[in-house]
Every structure is written in structure tokens, then in C-alpha cells.
């Protein structure tokens, strides 16, 4: 039993040098081969996996949407049977909102956070790896139903009683219920990782008023996720029990409450729709300054508005239930809050416009996407403002007007910023530029296609077209608008294809990009492109929001130090700092590659498959695998003396718990 000889270290301060870099490279590099593939904990690797996987789901969800649009292009078409249509529109919504929109942002945050924060990894790297595997497996789990012909068919919000066994006897809804609980675990652990990372692993001196807005966005989303995901997981679990074990939660004939489902779902889902845009709004807040050549206007206001949006967002869920016959008191309250929630959004919008106004825009492709996003946000936002007014919503709800709203906000504030972010950070990730000329064409195709597709939906909505109908008669006046929508949808899809084309071409022949191709001001631009496995040779000390601009802006009380700093090279080490002021507090020993997260995710998958088939042995087998993986994961390791040999420790024997 080894006693720990060294409980504290006085870290060496050194200037970045090649020898140190080489040593760190050895320590931080993911192992080659299968071990590295299944066991990597590198946030960059995990981030890329998240982004790629979520884009595959975007493509699948997009193709589903295009098929829907073919069916709806004209009245009385028979391309799809009603049941096929219902499964497709449900899977479209589920793929987009759960398997694309959040994971893509998780991917970006995973990749970018440590770079933005001046750290070498996130706080809980194995938890991070676990979250990816759980995401992948739960996505495959949900899609397994699709290929078995039993995809979920009750829309993404899956209202009971239609979701009850009595009306929906197949396994469709069981797949969805379990898949959502499964995915919820992934999102929960990933959120916990982000929150702890933001609290613990910022560069020395990065006090809370110097954190990039993207970090505020993801942090706010993560906190919200931790609070609201249990609501939806619980709802789906109760439904699973109702469907499989005869409980009565949602059985009206036994006193169960269909509206309980709606409350639990929307308590989750309204904060969720903000969670899947706040990080993207953060990307715009961090991206625009680079292309406007000045710091963001109203940093503090924008950061606060991010949190205010979410805080108010906890109190508006019933605006999705205005037609359910609630009391007038509840209606007035929730309607008022739903309208007032536009205030923090107004802050962001005007701050962005002011940044452009007082700045000097550089018309890069990324700038196009960020600026275009502002216009789409306003259009999508005001349609939300309209539905926020109860009496108006009684007319608008469940028509294509709402479909228009949700696509303007989702595509406008998620997809456009994400594509902009790809143009902006692709050079950092790969060391190569995306083609700018193609990029602008890409923007215009997507922008025009998008508006052509989704603007007419407002009109078909105002003309009374209900959502979720597989066909419509020719004499109700919707035909022309639907045709335009379908044409626009394909144009938009071609725009998305062009993005993929651009990526494919640029990966091979892209122009070489240096460390800081756009002359950005934040820490990620201080390191080479692509970043080395350890990110920073020496850990930076930060004195302002824009360490790379402060010489020129001269607005910092001191100077950031990027070339000289703590080496922390005794094994995988990183600096832990205090929550508010980011004062150095602890040296964190970071874990090495490990099979544990993967094993745990496999065990969890077995549990869920067991639950699907109501097989107790299946569930037990999964639980045992999960338990063993956890036990080995958490086994207290001994503190390493910090020699580089520590890198060769066997898996499962990590120093830091969790």
C-alpha cells in the first residue's frame, strides 16, 4: 500500500519549447488502434464524432422531410400511406430536434470549450466519452425501430392517450419511450461534464466576466438540461410502465391524466428548445466580433440575457397547451410570460446589430451565415410572439403557422449558426480553409431555399392548414403554397449538399490556414491548427476577454501570458481554478484512455434492449456489465508521482474519480 509522498506541487513556470511539447504530445496522444478508438477521452476526438454523427442524423432527417414534401406538394397524393407519413414526420422531428440539434452543439462545445478556456481537456473526460457512446447507441436504438417498420408514430411530443397501448399496440412507442430515456442519460452526463468544466477548468485569470459567450450558452443549456431532462425521462418511463406493466398514469378511465403527460413533456421541451439554440447564439456572439473587427457590444448584457432567456423559459411551458381548456388565470399568466420572454432576445438581436453597425464587417462566408441568422431569428421570433398571445394562438396553434415558426427558429438559430461555425472553425480543426466562394454560394442557396420553403408555411397556416396531415383536399386553397414550399425545400437541400461538397473538396485541396486565419481574439486562435493533443504547451494566464487583441485594443488591466506559464507535465495534468475568479486552486490529474465508458454504454444498451423485450435476464445482464464497468471506473487509483511512465498505466486505474 503506497503512501502518497507528494500531496502538493509547486508547478514550474516555463516558456513554451519544443522539448516540452514533444513530451506532452507523448502523454496526451490517444493510443493508436482499437484501444484508442474505443477508449479515447480526447475532447477534440469526441467533439468531431459528435458533429459527424449529428450531421448524419441531419441528413437522414432531411431526406425524411423531403419525402414528406413530395407527398404534400400537391393535394390528394398517394406517395405515402397515412401510417408511413406519420412515422416519417415523427422520425423527422425526433431526428432533428433530439439527434441533430443538441448533439451538434454538444460536439462544437466539446471541441471548442477547452480551447476557449485554455485547458487541456474537459473536467470529466471519461464522462464525456460515455456521453458520446450513449448518444450513438440511443440513436441507433431509436432508428432500429425505423428499419423494423415500427418507428414512433405519434409526433415528437407523443401525446397520450394515442400513445397508450390501446390505441397504439405496436412496439413503436416503446422504442421511442426507451430511446428517449436512454438519450436523456447521455445528455445528462454530458451536461454535468460541461457544468463542472465551466466551474473548474478555466485558464487562470479567466474570471466569469471574461468567458466567451459560447461558453455561457452551453453552460446555461447544460444547467437547464440537468433540471428538466428528468421530467421527460420520467414521463416516458411512466408511459413505458403503462404500456407494459399495467399502471394507470395516463389511463383516463382509471383516473389517469392525459394532461399530466403534456405538463411533464413541455416542462422539459420548452427549456429544451432554448437549450438547442443558446449555444448557437453564443457562436454568433463570438463569431460576429471577429468579422466586425471589434469586441461584442454589450458583452455583459448578452451574457445575462442568455441566462435570463432560460430562467424565464422555465415558466412558459403551457403556451404549448393553450387549447387544452386551462383556467383563465393560468392562461393570462403564461401568455404574459411568453410575450415578455422576447425582451432578452431583443437584447441579443440589438447587440449583434450594434456590433455590425459600429464595426467594419468582413464579408466572409461565416459572416454571411451569422448575419443571415439575425434576420431569420427575428422572423421566427415574432411568430413566436404572435403565438404567445393566447387568443391568437387559439387560431394559430397546430397549423402550419407553428410549423413555420419552429423551422425559422430551429433552422434559423441552430442550422445557420452551425454552418457559419463550420466555416469559421474548420481552419482551426483541419488547418485548411473551406472554399469561400463556394461558401457564399452555399449561403445564398440555403438562405433563398429556406425562405422559399418556410415563408409560405406562414401563409398556408393563416389559410388554416393543420399540421401533421398526410394529405389535403384540392378545394381549400393550400395547393400553390405547398408546391412552393416543396420546391424551396429541395433548393435548401441542394444548399446543404453544397456544404458537404465544399468540405469534401477542401479537406483534400483546401488553402493552408495558419494558427489564426481570421485574426480572432480568443485563446483557440493562439494554438496551431489543427491543435496538438495537449492543446496548450504551457497553460495560459488570461487578463481580458480577448487575449490576442489586447495589445491592439489596450483595454485590459494587464497582459495575458500565453507563451510562458505552467508546464504541468507530470502525467496528464491540468490546472483547476476557482469558480468565480479563476484563481489557480488545484492540479488535476486527468485520466487516460479507458474502455470503461464504452463498456458502460454497451451495458446500458443491453439494459434497454432487455426492457424493450421485457426480459428480466436481459436487464440483469446489462445491469451487471454496467455495474462492473462502473466499479472498475471508480476504483480509487494511487496518486502518481507524475513521471511520464504514468502514461503507461493500465486502463481503469485512473487517479481522479469519475
Amino acid at each position: 500500500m503506497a503512501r502518497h509522498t507528494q500531496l502538493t506541487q509547486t508547478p514550474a513556470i516555463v516558456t513554451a519549447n519544443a522539448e516540452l511539447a514533444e513530451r506532452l504530445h507523448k502523454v496526451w496522444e490517444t493510443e493508436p488502434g482499437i484501444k484508442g478508438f474505443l477508449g479515447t477521452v480526447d475532447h477534440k476526438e469526441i467533439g468531431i464524432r459528435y458533429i459527424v454523427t449529428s450531421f448524419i442524423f441531419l441528413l437522414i432527417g432531411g431526406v425524411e422531410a423531403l419525402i414528406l414534401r413530395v407527398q404534400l406538394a400537391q393535394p390528394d397524393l398517394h406517395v405515402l400511406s397515412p401510417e408511413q407519413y406519420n412515422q416519417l414526420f415523427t422520425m423527422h422531428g425526433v431526428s432533428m430536434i433530439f439527434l441533430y440539434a443538441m448533439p451538434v452543439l454538444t460536439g462544437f462545445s466539446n471541441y471548442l470549450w477547452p480551447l476557449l478556456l485554455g485547458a487541456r481537456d474537459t473536467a470529466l473526460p471519461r464522462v464525456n466519452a460515455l456521453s458520446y457512446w450513449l448518444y450513438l447507441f440511443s440513436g441507433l436504438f431509436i432508428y432500429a425501430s425505423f428499419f423494423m417498420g415500427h418507428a414512433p408514430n405519434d409526433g415528437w411530443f407523443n401525446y397520450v392517450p394515442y400513445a397508450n397501448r390501446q390505441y397504439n399496440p405496436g412496439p413503436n412507442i416503446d422504442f421511442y419511450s426507451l430511446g428517449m430515456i436512454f438519450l436523456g442519460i447521455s445528455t445528462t452526463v454530458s451536461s454535468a461534464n460541461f457544468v463542472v468544466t465551466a466551474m473548474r477548468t478555466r485558464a487562470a485569470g479567466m474570471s466569469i466576466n471574461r468567458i466567451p459567450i459560447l461558453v455561457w450558452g452551453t453552460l446555461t443549456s447544460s444547467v437547464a438540461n440537468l433540471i428538466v431532462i428528468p421530467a421527460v425521462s420520467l414521463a416516458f418511463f411512466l408511459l413505458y410502465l403503462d404500456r407494459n406493466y399495467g399502471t394507470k398514469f395516463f389511463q383516463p378511465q382509471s383516473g389517469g391524466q392525459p394532461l399530466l403527460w403534456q405538463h411533464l413533456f413541455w416542462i422539459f421541451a420548452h427549456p429544451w428548445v432554448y437549450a438547442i439554440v443558446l449555444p448557437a447564439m453564443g457562436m454568433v456572439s463570438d463569431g460576429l466580433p471577429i468579422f466586425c473587427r471589434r469586441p461584442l457590444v454589450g458583452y455583459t448584457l448578452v451574457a445575462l440575457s442568455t441566462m435570463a432567456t432560460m430562467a424565464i423559459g422555465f415558466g412558459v411551458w403551457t403556451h404549448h397547451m393553450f387549447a387544452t381548456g386551462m383556467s383563465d388565470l393560468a392562461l393570462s399568466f403564461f401568455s404574459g410570460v411568453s410575450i415578455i420572454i422576447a425582451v432578452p432576445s431583443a437584447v441579443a438581436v440589438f447587440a449583434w446589430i450594434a456590433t455590425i453597425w459600429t464595426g467594419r464587417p468582413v464579408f466572409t462566408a461565416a459572416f454571411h451565415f451569422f448575419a443571415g441568422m439575425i434576420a431569420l431569428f427575428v422572423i421566427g421570433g415574432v411568430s413566436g410572439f404572435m403565438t404567445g398571445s393566447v387568443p391568437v394562438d387559439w387560431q394559430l396553434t397546430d397549423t402550419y403557422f407553428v410549423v413555420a415558426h419552429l423551422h425559422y427558429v430551429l433552422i434559423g438559430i441552430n442550422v445557420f449558426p452551425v454552418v457559419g461555425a463550420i466555416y469559421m472553425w474548420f481552419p482551426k480543426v483541419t488547418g485548411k480553409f473551406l472554399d469561400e466562394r463556394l461558401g457564399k454560394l452555399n449561403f445564398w442557396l440555403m438562405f433563398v431555399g429556406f425562405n422559399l420553403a418556410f415563408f409560405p408555411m406562414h401563409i398556408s397556416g393563416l389559410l388554416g392548414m393543420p399540421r401533421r396531415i398526410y394529405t389535403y383536399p384540392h378545394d381549400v386553397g393550400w395547393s400553390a403554397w405547398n408546391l412552393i414550399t416543396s420546391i424551396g425545400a429541395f433548393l435548401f437541400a441542394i444548399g446543404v449538399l453544397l456544404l458537404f461538397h465544399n468540405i469534401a473538396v477542401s479537406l483534400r485541396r483546401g488553402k493552408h490556414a495558419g494558427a489564426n486565419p481570421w485574426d480572432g481574439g480568443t485563446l483557440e486562435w493562439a494554438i496551431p491548427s489543427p491543435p496538438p493533443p495537449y492543446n496548450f504547451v504551457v497553460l495560459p494566464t488570461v487578463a481580458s476577454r480577448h487575449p490576442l487583441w489586447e495589445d491592439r485594443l489596450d483595454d485590459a488591466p494587464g497582459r495575458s501570458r500565453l507563451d510562458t506559464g505552467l508546464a504541468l507535465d507530470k502525467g496528464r495534468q491540468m490546472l483547476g481554478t476557482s469558480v468565480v475568479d479563476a484563481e489557480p486552486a488545484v492540479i488535476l490529474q486527468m485520466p487516460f484512455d479507458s474502455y470503461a465508458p464504452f463498456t458502460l454504454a454497451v451495458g446500458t444498451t443491453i439494459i434497454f434492449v432487455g426492457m424493450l423485450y421485457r426480459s428480466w435476464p436481459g436487464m440483469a445482464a446489462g445491469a451487471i456489465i454496467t455495474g462492473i464497468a462502473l466499479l472498475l471506473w471508480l476504483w480509487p487509483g494511487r496518486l502518481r508521482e507524475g513521471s511520464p511512465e504514468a502514461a503507461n498505466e493500465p486502463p481503469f486505474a485512473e487517479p481522479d474519480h469519475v
Partner: protein
Amino acid sequence: MSAPLNYLTSHGARADMILPLTRGVLIISIIVILIVCGLLAAAIFRRRPVEAPGADPRGLLFRPRGGLTFVYVGVGISTLVLVATTIRTMKTLADVVSPPREAKLTIEVTGHQWWWEARYFSEKPAEIFTTANEIHIPAGEPVRFKLIGGDVIHSFWVPALAGKTDTIPGQTNITWLQAERPGVYRGQCTEYCGKQHANMAFFVVADEPARFEEWRQKQIAPAAPSADVAQGLSAFQTRCGACHTVRGTPAGGKVGPDLTHVMSRGTIAAGTLPNTPGHLTGWIANPQGVKPGNHMPQIDMSGADLNAIRTFLQTLG
């Protein structure tokens, strides 16, 4: 082209109260979009002061001023508009809660997969009757609706007369409508309810009060099938009676729409087909072809039976 479900025009007191608000927020929204997008365009394309010669056009700007004022003004004005809208919303909400006058007529509407049942209440039990998919009301008078969920959740919506209210199993929702003028107003289920959610329309027919009363008396009366259609009646009883009611005959099923006066209705199968003899035959022979997945099964029968049943139904005026 006509758009019977559009709600930017209204034909009833309840919709009238809401319409100005709808138009108001729509106009505010359009103005906001124009202003903000205008500002955005101006921000992007506005002329900027000429560079000092030799300065880097992509160089950093040194702390330009004025940005925050812009934010404060923008947010300030927006807040005023938002607060005003909230107040106006509350007022409209208070207005629509109850009808201008006490409603004399109460109709209980039950949403079923995928058709609507309407029960007309009356003090006199003998005057209570049930019909389906076509709801007659007296023009110019408020009518109270009790909305009940029969199986899953549906939503009751007649855009020209009023907004939506859900029909939810296990609870009763109350709403009211009033049609100013006689006319036929299309309604539609707007809560997703399964395979045939798309084909779950209905019609509210507003009649002059006298005509309405005439219609009501006719609906109260049971069917009186003549001897000519005895064969059709007996075939109907065995094949269809388990699901459909025809008052005045032994057929008393509750699964499908009441057919006592089916010929008085303009359409069949919840607005899916016009009620012509041809379509009626087509429906009875092949309901699954017309409305795939609906709860009326395909029933094998001889052409003679089919004709007899159709002929019988045609007497149910």
C-alpha cells in the same frame, strides 16, 4: 381561390373579438421584421468613414462608441410594445371568456377517431338527439359547446367562428360560438389523433332560427322505414347495426356515427366525401380504400345487399 379554413376573416362574435388582436400582432410583427431587417442591412452596408491611407482595412477597431445606446433604445421600445401587447391580450382574453348573452342551446361534441359526434341537449329528454359531423346552429345566437374526448385527444376548430379547444378524454371543456350570418363553416380536427387526422373535418351550419327549429324537429323524429326497404333494413341491422344507430329501428350500435338522418348531411365520413348515392355506395363497399385505417371495416357482401342497404339509407332523410 377560396380558403374555407382561413381565419383572417371572421363570421362570428367570438372570432370577431379575436381578429383585431390577430391582425394587430401580425402587423406589429411585420413592422418589427421590416425595421430590424432594415437596421441589419443598414448596419452591414452603411458607408463607413474613409480609412486613413495605408491603414489595414481589416485591422481591429479601437473601442468604437455608441453601440450600447443602440441596444438600450431598441430594447426599450421593444419592451413597450411587448407590454402593450400583453395588456391587450389580457383584455381580449377577458372578453371571449363568456358569450355576450346567455347561451340557450348546449351541444355536446365528442371527438372520435376520426369523426365527430354531436348531442343536442334539451330540458325535455325526448328532444335530446344525436347526429354526426354536421352541426346545425341558429344564426345570431350564442351556442354553448361541451367538448368531450371519446378516445384520444382531438381539437375542435371552426376558424371562421372561433379558435381551437381540445376534446380530452377524462375532462369536459366548455366553449361557445356564435355565427352572425347563416352559412356553412368548415371545421377541422387539429390535434394529431392518428392515421386519419387529416380527414377529420366537420361542418357548422348556421341556419335562420326558424329553419334551425325545423331541422331540429326533423332530427328529433326517429326514422320510419317503409316496407319497401325492409330487405335493406334487415341487411343493415345484421351487418351494420352493431356499430350504427338508426333510431326507430333495432339498430343501436354506438361505435360509428348515428345514421338516423344521414341523408340530411352534406358529406359523409367526416367531410371526406360528398353525400351522393355514388359516393355512399363507394364508402359502404370500400371504406378502407376511401379512408385507410378508419374504424369502419371492409364488409364483404353481395351487390344485391349493398344496393338494398344503400336504398335503405337513402330513405333516411
